[in-house]
């Protein structure tokens, strides 16, 4: 992967993101990775998420975000990568990165990008949970013997 904006079903690689986030004079690189958490829900513990998106529009909104971050923070290289499809607990669903001359701008740009991505990019997740096993009734202990 050598592109800024990417929507894919395949795992996201931070090492690949670092290769995109490099270039002469880019002294500060900040990467945010979002991982699927095993949250508790009424339906049980989350084991995976299903991500869907309005992909064509998502790509164009992400490209807008890239241009805005470049203009506003002087971020020279940007990564806005999102997985879709089934993503298991512990896996990375989103990778956002910014490479700038200095660290302050890189932090600000990366923070801006993930906040805006969540707010304005047409991507959704649906939780898949494993129902908590219902506690079995403890074996009934009879007092003495009963008939039958």
């Amino acid at each position: 992967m050598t592109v800024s904006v990417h929507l894919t079903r395949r795992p996201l690689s931070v090492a690949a993101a670092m290769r995109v986030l490099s270039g002469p004079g880019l002294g500060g690189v900040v990467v945010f990775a979002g991982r699927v958490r095993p949250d508790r829900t009424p339906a049980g513990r989350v084991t995976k998420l299903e991500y869907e998106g309005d992909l064509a529009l998502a790509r164009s909104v992400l490209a807008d975000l890239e241009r805005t971050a470049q203009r506003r923070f002087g971020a020279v290289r940007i990564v806005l990568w999102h997985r879709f499809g089934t993503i298991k607990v512990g896996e990375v669903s989103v990778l956002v990165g910014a490479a700038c001359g200095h660290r302050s701008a890189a932090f600000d740009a990366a923070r801006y990008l993930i906040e805006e991505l969540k707010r304005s990019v047409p991507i959704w997740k649906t939780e898949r949970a494993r129902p908590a096993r219902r506690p079995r009734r403890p074996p009934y202990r009879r007092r003495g013997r009963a008939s039958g």
Partner: protein
Amino acid sequence: MAPRVTILLFATARLAAGASELRWPVEPGGLPLGSLVRSLGSRYPKLAPILPTCRFVLNGRYVVSRATRVRPGDKFAVHPPYGGG
């Protein structure tokens, strides 16, 4: 073939309607977006409470005005609040 609009439903809207894509019959002259949304809510009662939280996309562009005319052949997408990341 009758004149139709393609309606794309995502996430909670898809679950509420039980379909990700609808072929929705419209008059040849089309109808205002507000009317289309109202009739969608009537046809799918579970969808009705979700619609006020949704953004709407017509042929790949966000539309805000309820008066915007939706015409046969258009692609209309219903976007519940986003949840990426």
